[in-house]
């Protein structure tokens, strides 16, 4: 897809479908550090039971936004409402959180670590221990139940922390860059787990700089760049911000039919590329047939989230996003 999609972006922010009750609502969140504005007027509406992605490059303000939503830090201004409460700690027992920087007590046994994370969320310790053992068994980590965290591999420790995030059956789960550091197999497992949570009615919100994860999983996304959210809403709406892309191959190189092509049409080899005109494809088809252009192939493709991201956040943010992904793959 080589066309410049920016020319066909529809103007104005689009908010998410607000028919379902909202698990998270944020209005005008601002956070500054030492004169640097990390988050600059973020608005979010996360419907209950949805999978919601916060998509942006490193340093865009994703982690700071999540920390404000969870009450780890307070915004300098703006409003936040989590599961109907203004103070996130009041509903902490119904929230699970996996931070970007994973951390566990190295001397704790795996099941104790899960129980401790549950205890922090109000789960009685004995019940947490029992559930911790069950969860480890259920996820193929039964052999690690009595092992200390320091004896586990990084990937296994990450799984233990993930189970600790879910041990108290939270209504809302917040993951900060959950896929970072996981191999392809475990990324697939995590995607499955996220879908499973959503099927049970749990709201899942996660940040990522990998568009593919957001595209595969999310009902809605917020695109964040430079601390601002230029788009928040359903993934389909984001895609629809760019008109579908047409690829046309003709036998004839020239003719009267060319006058019917849109102004942004670009010729590469034997192909023409352009955005689908607002009038639809039929007038163009008619002109091509009547002008005897000789249609060899014609495809109309809906824009991907990547194109939508480029169109919404700009080329620079997209490049930063791609760079972040490459850095992670190289690690």
């Amino acid at each position: 897809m080589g066309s410049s999609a920016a020319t066909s972006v529809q103007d104005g922010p689009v908010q998410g479908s607000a028919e379902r009750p909202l698990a998270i609502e944020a209005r005008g969140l601002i956070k500054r550090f030492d004169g640097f504005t990390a988050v600059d007027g973020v608005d979010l509406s996360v419907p209950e039971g949805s999978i919601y992605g916060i998509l942006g490059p490193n340093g865009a303000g994703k982690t700071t936004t999540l920390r404000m939503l969870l009450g780890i830090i307070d915004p300098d201004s703006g409003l936040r409402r989590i599961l109907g409460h203004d103070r996130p700690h009041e509903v902490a027992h119904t929230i699970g959180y996996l931070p970007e920087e994973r951390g566990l007590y190295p001397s704790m046994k795996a099941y104790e670590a899960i129980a401790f994370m549950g205890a922090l969320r109000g789960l009685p310790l004995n019940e947490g221990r029992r559930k911790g053992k069950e969860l480890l068994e259920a996820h193929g980590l039964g052999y690690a139940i009595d092992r200390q965290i320091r004896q586990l591999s990084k990937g296994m420790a990450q799984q233990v922390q993930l189970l600790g995030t879910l041990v108290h059956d939270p209504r809302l789960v917040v993951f900060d860059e959950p896929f970072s550091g996981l191999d392809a197999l475990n990324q697939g497992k995590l995607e499955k787990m996220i879908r499973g949570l959503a099927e049970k009615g749990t709201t899942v919100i996660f940040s990522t700089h990998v568009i593919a994860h957001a595209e595969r999983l999310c009902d809605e996304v917020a695109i964040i760049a430079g601390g601002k959210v230029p788009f928040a809403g359903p993934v389909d709406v984001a895609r629809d911000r760019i008109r579908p892309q047409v690829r046309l191959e003709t036998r004839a190189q020239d003719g009267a039919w060319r006058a019917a092509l849109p102004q942004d049409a670009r010729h590469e080899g034997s192909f023409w590329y352009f955005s689908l005109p607002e009038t639809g494809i039929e007038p163009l088809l008619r002109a091509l047939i009547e002008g005897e252009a000789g249609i060899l192939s014609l495809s109309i493709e809906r824009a991907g989230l990547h194109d939508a991201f480029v169109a919404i956040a700009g080329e620079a943010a997209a490049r930063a996003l791609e760079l972040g992904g490459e850095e992670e793959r190289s690690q």
Partner: protein
Amino acid sequence: MTGRLSTLQAAMVIARRDFTAILFSRSFFFFLLGPLFPLLVGGLAGGIGQRVQDHAGRPELGVAMSAKDVAAMTAAYQRLAPQLSNLPTLVSLGNGRESEAFDARAALSDKRLNLAAVVTGTPAAPILTGPQEQIARWQGPVGLIAAEAIAEKPSRFPDVALSPITTKTTADETRSRLVTAQLGQTVLFLLTMLLAGMVLSNLVEEKGNKIIEILAAAIPMDAVFLGKLFAMLAVSWVGITVWGLAGGAVWLSSGHSLADYPAPAVGWPAFLGLGVLYFSMGYLLLGSLFLAIGAMASTVREVQTLSMPVTMLQLLNFFFASFAMAQPGSAIELAAAIVPFSSPFTMLARAAQQPELWTHGLALGWQALCVALFVRAGATLFRRRVMKSGPAQGGSKGGLLKRAFAR
């Protein structure tokens, strides 16, 4: 389904984890052994000091007079020595030559002798040569010996009947209570510094383990700080109990008892109880301040940089309280009791010296209020400074104070 935790319940979750982790760690074993080191070092230093003292011997007073006068001075000395315990050791010098020919200065510089001063002349007109302080100290005893030497008849000393009492005199009691107060303050200071340092290390380790964000997301930071403080307090109580039992057993088995020592003004049970309470408050005050430092700092180096002046200030507070101890009832003592960080030391010393108890209730209330304020301030700083991300993060940007107070 889980229920929401109150701040106290959340603090208990943290305290329970930290308490168990510390109790079963190697560092706790070394913590228990801690008091042995000063005892060992003190014992060694005392032993060496005694040997040095023995080696140096008692300073001697040289007598360089005619043979007849030396004999008279020696006889007088022997008669007086049983009556006066602080007489210097007398040694004869100059082989009975006339004292005018004797060089007292040379004798005092002679490395083979251990002379502190030399008396020459005659018993009727003795001349005492030596360093100013020494001759001022010995002027009286030398005059006494010389007077006894020229007396026509030796002095007759009446038998003094001794009537010992078992109770302490007021002077003894005042001195003992002062010693008890001083000892209590020193133990309190050393323990609080040790434990506050340990709680700071614990927080820094937690920041290193990246666990702090999980805690901060789940429970209020006040609860995290309170939990950490109380865990270390409980650990220290275990330590004190172990030390108390072990020390008490050794002490009692060697035939001592508390009754052998003058009771502090409030009595031993109240003094020990107040000791535990003031230790707890002193530790909580300093620990909460150290946690606030941990909250401000991003790196171990910053922690060290920030904790050094606080340690020095705490030393000053200790000296302030020690100074105030010697002036009971003064404005200085009141000020030392009000300043939160010197208050526990001052009030413990007061318990040793003054019998009123109500002042301790007031002081403990005030100290508890200060602990609550420091914990809240530390938690606020933590939320402001620690959990930030983005380009401004790190220890190198801006001054520590600027970063601590910036929003």
